[in-house]
């Protein structure tokens, strides 16, 4: 009996000792008050939307800039912990799609190719969802595929899905339009164009068309970019046709919405030889108004302007820095287009949903559909969606890429 009691006491003491040792072995791993960026949801994508999303993230044009304005950051509801966003531009400030470089979106994550367009962003997000590697097809800084699982939460996109499916959801939130910038040595010979002329130009194998006695050349922004796809759709040419035309005149894959890049590429053309280049109305206006990083100031100063198309009129009214968009383009079923936030479908519904992502983007009461967010978008040249164009926050449009 005595022996039994000793064993029991000894056993209890041993258990107590061991429990204490185990408890001492645990380390506190609680998160503490880190910068707001540590919980922000990371996004990439097209350049036409990058400036308004910079504003949603807190500042645009992003510093360093003499024109930086600070905004109240877009954030999820207090019930979903006030999570903010961080938005990576299509290419670094002062940089180019020729060298977009690498980004690291989250602490501890890998460096990977900066997706330099809506299309590339969507491809990268799909890779993050599917667990496949992401590498940009051109100008890769990694040179090999990188696992980006967990590194991307959303993509800004001005184009719709290119493949059917349900992996990703395109959520509309505003309206933009396709326009065409022109350079004609300041003669304004081609200040008015027709859709038929643009179709003929971009479907020609020579990449040229004679308009009002001048030879006009066809230029294109980066392959896969939304501005390129939307322009091709508006004038009814395939990417293959347009690609052939732009290659024929060595004016292909220019920086999207980069007026200066366009001007620098075509300014040496001889008198009587002009060029046109697809643009987005919102980006042109935001750059001219200096709410966005101005990448077209040199171009504007040297006569690059937006052409009026058909009977729609000039795409903007007023003078820089007080341009206002011409609604005829935005409401046009041909030239107007919705702009989207693309999210993984399984992050806005079901067990794996991210409540903050839902609060930010999903549904008509989401933060991006608020009056304040709409007002910010208007500042960057976007229009609100009308009933016939779509419903802000709708989650009915899905695709795999």
């Amino acid at each position, binding site marked *: 009996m005595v022996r039994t009691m000793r064993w029991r006491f000894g056993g*209890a003491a*041993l*258990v107590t000792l*061991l*429990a204490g*040792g*185990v*408890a001492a*072995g*645990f*380390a*506190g*791993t*609680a*998160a503490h008050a*880190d910068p707001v960026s*540590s919980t922000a949801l990371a996004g990439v994508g097209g350049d036409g939307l990058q400036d308004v999303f910079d504003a949603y993230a807190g500042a645009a044009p992003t510093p360093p800039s003499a024109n930086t304005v600070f905004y109240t950051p877009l954030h999820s509801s207090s*019930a*979903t*912990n006030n999570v903010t966003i961080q938005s990576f531009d299509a290419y670094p400030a002062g940089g180019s799609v020729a060298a977009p470089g690498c980004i690291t979106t*989250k*602490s*501890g*994550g*890998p*460096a990977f190719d900066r997706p330099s367009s809506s299309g590339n962003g969507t491809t990268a997000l799909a890779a*993050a*969802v*599917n*667990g496949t590697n992401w590498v940009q097809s051109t100008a890769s800084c990694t040179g090999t595929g990188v*696992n980006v*699982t*967990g590194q991307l939460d959303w993509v800004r996109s001005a184009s719709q899905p290119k493949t059917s499916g349900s992996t990703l959801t395109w959520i509309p939130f505003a309206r933009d339009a396709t326009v065409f910038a022109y350079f004609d040595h300041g003669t304004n010979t081609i200040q008015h164009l027709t859709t038929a002329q643009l179709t003929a130009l971009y479907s020609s194998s020579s990449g040229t068309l004679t308009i009002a006695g001048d030879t006009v050349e066809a230029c294109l922004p980066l392959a896969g970019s939304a501005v390129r796809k939307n322009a091709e759709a508006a004038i009814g040419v395939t990417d293959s046709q347009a690609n052939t035309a732009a290659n024929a005149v060595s004016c292909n894959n220019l920086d999207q919405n980069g007026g200066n890049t366009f001007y620098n590429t075509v300014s040496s053309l001889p008198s009587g030889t002009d060029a046109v280049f697809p643009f987005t109305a919102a980006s042109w206006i935001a750059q001219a108004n200096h709410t966005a990083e101005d990448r077209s100031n040199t171009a504007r100063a040297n006569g690059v302007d937006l052409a009026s198309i058909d009977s729609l009129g000039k795409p903007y009214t007023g003078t820089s820095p007080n341009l206002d968009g011409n609604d005829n383009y935005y409401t046009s079923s041909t030239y107007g287009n919705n702009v989207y936030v693309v999210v*993984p479908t*399984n992050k806005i519904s*079901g*067990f*794996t*949903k*991210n*409540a*903050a992502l839902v609060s930010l983007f999903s549904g008509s009461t989401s933060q991006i559909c608020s009056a304040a967010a709409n007002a910010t978008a208007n500042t960057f040249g976007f229009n609100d969606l009308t009933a016939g164009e779509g419903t802000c926050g709708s989650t009915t449009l899905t695709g795999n890429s």
Partner: protein
Amino acid sequence: MRSNRGQSGKRVRARTMLAAALLGGTALTMGVAPAGASTLGGTATIANPSNNTALPSGGSTTTFTVNLPAGAACDGDTATGGYHVYSFLVQAGTDITSATFNNFPSQGYGFVDNTGTYYGPANTAINTGQIISIPTNFQWGPLVVSDGGALALSDLLYSGTSGDWDAGLVCANSSGHVADYWTTPVLFTASNSDPNGFTWTSGPRSSTPEAPVALMLPVIGAAAAVFVLMRKRRQRHPEVAAVDAA
């Protein structure tokens, strides 16, 4: 012969002591895995986020965090190795290594925070692969339908009054396969007084106190060595007596 028997006995003793030492040594190294070694079945502990002490029970809206052994790390890091941290919640007895983790678990559920957001995939520390910044706002309530989740309460409770589950964290490699995991049992029990209809307890399933295997193995090894030595000594005595009689 006697001399040979003596050498044989020494060899037996030496082997026995070596085995015990090896057992003890192995056990001592099981508590915290060194960097690069897989941890399968490590201990996760549900804890109070305000003081990091174990939290053995709570209601559906009780906020908690998860503690892992000091230095708990994945086999590789996120930045260069493609490893990610995910949470899981599977019915007791499920082999979590049979699940895959590509953005979310292929089976079961996981830890969710107070907003219902699933935890994972999360990045590890660079180079070390350490599991860091585990959230401090987990709750079980947001898992179930009544609190905005996708899981029916009846499923959580095994269509009865209680459900026995395993919860924890895994490290998944770039292919989504489990490389490491730490787990703890969680028993959910129906409760009329809880706003979401259940409470939970967490800890070892055995009702008697249990010492960690890592620290019990040396004791078992030493006991085994003593047993073998005593048995050998008993077997030796009849032979010695026979020699003396001759």
